[in-house]
């Protein structure tokens, strides 16, 4: 009796395993991979195979083969996915304009594709030479021009966002971790790039206030405002490219910020726009402070009472997300819950619900 289960199992075997072909590893070479896909016996797996071949071709910046591979994927969801993968990988290979052309054909995935592509570009793309700040700004602008032109191929409601996202990405690469925060470069930016330039300069200027980590100086905002006003270049230790990251907040449903004009930040993050240059600089600095994982909540509290709506709302949001040094943040938020500004009150209430300061750095709910 004990041998029956084995007997039953053996009796039902029918010499299976044709599927080993379908699950075999693809050749590394994209052309060989695409050729191998044609031999795949099952349509659904041919689709996945061709998308993988397209991604590998894009990763090697082989635009023609990428096009050929995606062209073999049936139209619809999976063709769109193929263009999405191609867009990401071409950007990663240092071809952001070609990547955007694929994002434009990725249908409902195009917004994701733009964000992924923008933040996949290699750091080197943002590193430009030049005698002085304005000359380096001009060099960066020249690199951005074909990318912004390629954004024109996207659907109309995505063009501006895509161009701004790539502006932020390239300015970010040109600043963060380089060991040099030069306000004259940011001030020399083309007008449409200035918000990104401000944000990117602020990120590096803040980092250099505490390059080894730890709390930031209590007068960090004033120091940065003065450096910007006086054109003061700050220098310090650079970061290796793989560590050029920080804390960011995915676009969160803050009701009072919905529908307001914004600029892209690191990753999929965004910040409110200021009504004028000073206000926009201050908002960029506040967001840059929060980007540093050790930035303390105390830095944001003074700005919760600012007369400018967008400054106040930015500060209220960042206050509830940061950890305090000595401030009783729970008590502060309880008070702010009764603030006459509904947006400040909403942020205080949300802060008390989520108690983000009790979680490790950067772990958002």
């Amino acid at each position, binding site marked *: 009796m004990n041998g*029956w289960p084995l007997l*039953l199992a053996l009796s039902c075997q029918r010499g299976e395993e044709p599927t080993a072909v379908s699950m075999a*590893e693809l050749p590394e070479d994209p052309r060989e991979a695409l050729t191998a896909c044609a031999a795949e*016996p099952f349509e659904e*797996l041919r689709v996945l195979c061709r998308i*993988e071949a397209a991604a590998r071709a894009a990763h090697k910046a082989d635009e023609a083969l990428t096009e050929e591979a995606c062209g073999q994927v*049936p139209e619809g969801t999976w063709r769109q996915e193929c263009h*999405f993968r191609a867009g990401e990988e071409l950007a990663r290979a240092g071809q952001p304009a070609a990547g955007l052309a694929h994002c434009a054909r990725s249908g409902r*995935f195009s917004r994701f594709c733009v964000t992924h592509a923008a933040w996949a570009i290699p750091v080197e793309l943002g590193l430009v030479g030049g005698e002085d700040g304005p000359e380096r700004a001009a060099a960066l602008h020249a690199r951005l021009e074909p990318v912004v032109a390629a954004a024109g191929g996207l659907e109309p409601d995505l063009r501006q966002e895509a161009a701004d996202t790539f502006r932020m990405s390239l300015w970010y690469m040109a600043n963060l971790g380089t060991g040099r925060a030069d306000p004259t470069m940011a001030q020399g930016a083309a007008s449409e790039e200035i918000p990104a330039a401000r944000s990117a300069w602020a990120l590096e200027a803040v980092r250099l206030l505490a390059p080894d980590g730890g709390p930031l100086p209590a007068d960090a905002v004033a120091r940065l405002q003065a450096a910007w006003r006086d054109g003061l270049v700050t220098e310090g230790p650079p970061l290796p490219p793989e560590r050029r990251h920080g804390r960011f907040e995915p676009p969160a449903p803050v009701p009072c910020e919905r529908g307001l004009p914004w600029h892209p930040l690191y990753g999929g993050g965004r910040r409110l726009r200021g009504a004028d240059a000073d206000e926009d600089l201050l908002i960029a600095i506040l967001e840059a402070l929060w980007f540093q994982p050790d930035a303390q909540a105390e830095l944001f509290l003074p700005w919760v009472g600012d007369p400018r709506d967008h400054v106040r709302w930015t500060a209220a949001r960042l206050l509830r997300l940061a950890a305090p040094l000595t401030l009783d943040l729970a008590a502060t938020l309880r008070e702010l819950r009764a603030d006459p500004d509904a947006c400040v009150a909403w942020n205080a209430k949300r802060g008390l619900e989520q108690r983000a300061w009790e979680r490790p750095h950067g772990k958002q709910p």
Partner: protein
Amino acid sequence: MTRWLLPALLTCACHGRDDCATGDAVDRENCRFEKASALFSAGDDAWRAQLEGLPGAHSRDLLRLRLAVLDPQQGPALCRQMETPAAQDRCRQVAGRPHLASPPRPGEGDAQ
């Protein structure tokens, strides 16, 4: 008793588990997929019983993967059930891409 019990058990064990026994290996897999996908697309959970009755982890994984491509919204759940490392790896192309679960926009229907 074993004279009649053994053949009966063998018949019962195999009957209904997989009635795509004819043709070559690819035909068999396609037959299984056609049957399962018809039930799957109609929302009939009987496809699960059919899947469980398939002989061999590779066949079950192949079916899961093909269904995941057919309906990427079900991809993450199907991929979690993969039994073989190769299929788990291949399934990342579906489950590792959460946007695939978003419904097509009007006029963006799938041609496949």
